[in-house]
């Protein structure tokens, strides 16, 4: 058994950790980020698809992510989250948004702006274009508004390089029609009357000002380097999410009380230590989730439920071993040391295998499964930490106290029984 001083230090360290966790827990209402399934909002999953010869590269998706985030920001949606899963799907989370139509519209627009010469119109009245002469990536500014005759337009300004190209195109093609094509749709095709310098152009033929604003917005934020296909749109109303959350919390509280009663009934005084450990566990778990700012989701709650079970399990393993040793008739301190040693391997082995599962889930899982893996892994590590270090320190602190009797631990050796030297009850007299 390690020295008393060591145990005191361990307990002090734990109290400090608890203090730090309390700091992160405050304010209680908002310290933990909630996933969309618990707080309500919209989640959109988009699958990048290669466009023509262009491959879907990791860089292209990074860029697409950045552009989407910019577009959402411009829509004034607070706390949007744009992430990416193992399959390179882009996941857009919009908390509190319950009518996602406009957001989807804006996010999904590729905003591929091209300037081409309109060569002719075929028999189905489809335009036939020449090669692309200029693209939207040379754009520096786009704005929606009305022109002098009151029509809705989007005005665009090019950078120096774009302006030079634009001047060259217009000067070489005087008399031809210059088609302005947005996402493969011809918006307008004005006739070039003279060379245009200065690098300004206008898109016409837009029905509403709102649409003009959206076009300006997507042009401003740049063209997506990939096409995006919507895989899933999920909107959870605010009531459903809150219901789920409140019921989960209530279930947690009632579950905790039942566990506490159970542990007290089974292990008496040791149960008290275990309840303290469990409270510490909850505080540390909460603190870490708040500090990491990982949003907790419904599957994440499954992970929490499971890890509470695992946390208690470690205590049960240790305490039953201690009881076992005491029934064998060993001294208090010997029972505590032996009980701990015997339970140690089982706890470590079972937790490490579960950690292996969590790691694999984290690496290869998608969205909600990842959230689950994170809570599972955090829970296991905290529970091992508490059971093997904190509870151990407390146990060895109190073991020599006179209050700790076999009865205190819930061991009953009937006096009228025949007990062999190993403490095994072999029968009554």
């Amino acid at each position, binding site marked *: 058994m390690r020295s008393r001083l060591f145990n005191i230090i361990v307990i002090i360290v734990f109290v400090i950790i608890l203090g730090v966790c309390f700091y992160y827990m405050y304010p209680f209402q908002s310290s933990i980020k909630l996933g969309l399934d618990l707080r309500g909002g919209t989640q959109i999953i988009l699958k990048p698809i290669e466009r023509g010869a262009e491959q879907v590269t990791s860089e292209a998706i990074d860029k697409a992510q950045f552009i989407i985030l910019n577009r959402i920001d411009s829509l004034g949606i607070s706390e949007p989250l744009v992430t990416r899963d193992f399959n390179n799907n882009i996941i857009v989370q919009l908390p509190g948004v319950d009518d996602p139509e406009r957001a989807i519209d804006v996010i999904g627009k590729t905003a591929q702006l091209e300037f081409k010469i309109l060569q002719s119109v075929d028999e189905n009245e489809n335009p036939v274009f020449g090669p692309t002469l200029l693209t939207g990536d040379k754009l520096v500014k786009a704005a929606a508004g009305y022109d002098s005759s009151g029509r809705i337009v989007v005005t665009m300004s090019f950078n120096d390089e774009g302006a030079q190209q634009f001047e060259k195109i217009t000067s070489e093609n005087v008399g031809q029609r210059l088609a302005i094509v947005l996402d493969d749709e011809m918006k307008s095709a004005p006739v070039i009357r003279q060379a245009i310098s200065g690098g300004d152009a206008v898109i016409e033929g837009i029905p509403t000002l709102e649409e003009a604003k959206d076009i300006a917005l997507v042009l401003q934020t740049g063209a997506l380097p990939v096409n995006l296909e919507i895989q*899933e749109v999920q909107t959870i109303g605010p009531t459903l999410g809150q219901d789920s959350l409140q019921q989960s919390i209530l279930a947690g509280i009632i579950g905790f009380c039942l566990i506490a009663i159970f542990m007290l009934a089974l292990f008496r005084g040791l149960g008290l230590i275990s309840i303290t450990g469990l409270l510490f566990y909850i505080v540390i778990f909460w603190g870490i989730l708040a500090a990491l700012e990982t949003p907790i989701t419904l599957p994440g709650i499954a992970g929490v439920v499971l890890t509470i079970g695992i946390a208690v399990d470690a205590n049960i393993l240790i305490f039953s071993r201690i009881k076992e040793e005491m029934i064998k008739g060993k001294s208090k301190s010997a029972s505590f040391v032996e009980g701990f040693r015997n339970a140690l391997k089982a706890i470590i082995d079972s937790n490490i295998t579960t950690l292996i599962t969590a790691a694999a889930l984290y690496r290869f899982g998608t969205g909600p*499964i990842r959230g689950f893996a994170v809570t599972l892994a955090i829970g296991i590590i905290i529970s091992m930490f508490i059971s093997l270090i904190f509870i151990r320190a407390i146990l060895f602190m109190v073991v020599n106290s006179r209050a700790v009797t076999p009865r205190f631990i819930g061991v009953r050796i009937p006096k009228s029984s025949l007990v062999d030297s190993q403490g095994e009850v072999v*029968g009554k007299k």
Partner: protein
Amino acid sequence: MVKNKKAAKKLKRKKTQQSILPAAETIKPLTDEKKFEKGKESPLIEIRTVRFDFIGKNKYWIILSTALIIAGIILFFIRGFNFGIDFLGGNLMEVKFKKEVSITELRKLMEETGYGKAILQSTDKDQYIIRTTPINEEQKDSILNKLDEEIGIEKPLVQDREVAAGFSKTITRNALIAVAISVVGILIYVWIRFAVRFAIVAIIELLHDVLIIFSFYIVTFREFNTTTIAVILTILGYSLSDAIVIFDRIREELRVNKRDSFPLIVNYSINKILVRSLSTTATTLFPVIVLLIIGNETLKDFAFGLFIGVLSGTFSSIFIGAPILIAWNNRFPKYKK
């Protein structure tokens, strides 16, 4: 030695009383050398008491479990899983109406909109889940407008989901890859810490638990969705720690007890771990049962899977894992037969 005789006598009496458990109790000299060294305890006898015989009556348990799985398989071919929209694709709207409405009324209205085949599920007297095949915004609006005119609906919708068909393939594939990798990891770890047979038995237990959960979902026709996958993964973790704890006890017993046969050691180990197993099952199930009682539909679905899985996980480590270990040892003896 007096005590030794006494105990032997005692044992003899017990044996005649309980002939069902022939090999269940033995006397063995204490062989733990460490205890000798300490010299604190006299090297007398240690009695391996076995309260319940888990191995003898094992057949019945395996039959129960197999029957469930077979029922699941049969029903799988008859009607299969009740997959949620995250697997099938389509639209789901959960609507809270301004007044109570019966499912027949709602069905009639849906028929008028041309979506009579939609799946309707009541979550409250005035609240329904409506599931359709993939529809576009206009079609969705036409349904909602009709319902709003006739009954009146609360906005925003409780939930509104749209899933492209085939999207779940990637989720499922990912989950399968994750499970496959963790299975390999577990195999290697348990192999190193225990023995290869323990590793394989652990995997068989996991497989059993997954099949049991599948069967329950098929038989009760509960919705199977991505949350269900998370539940199954949770159970893999639970079942695994349960298996490992028993393996650990067997490993320890094998080390100190060189005299008894392997089946006896397994039986003894399970008896010793029983209180812990049942206690852990109870403590894990407490919050799950509360969720099952007070939770909304989403939470119930999820608590249901956990409930079945935790029970199955505890069951499989005792009634599936142990007998396979014994049968394996009978066929390829590594430990005392």
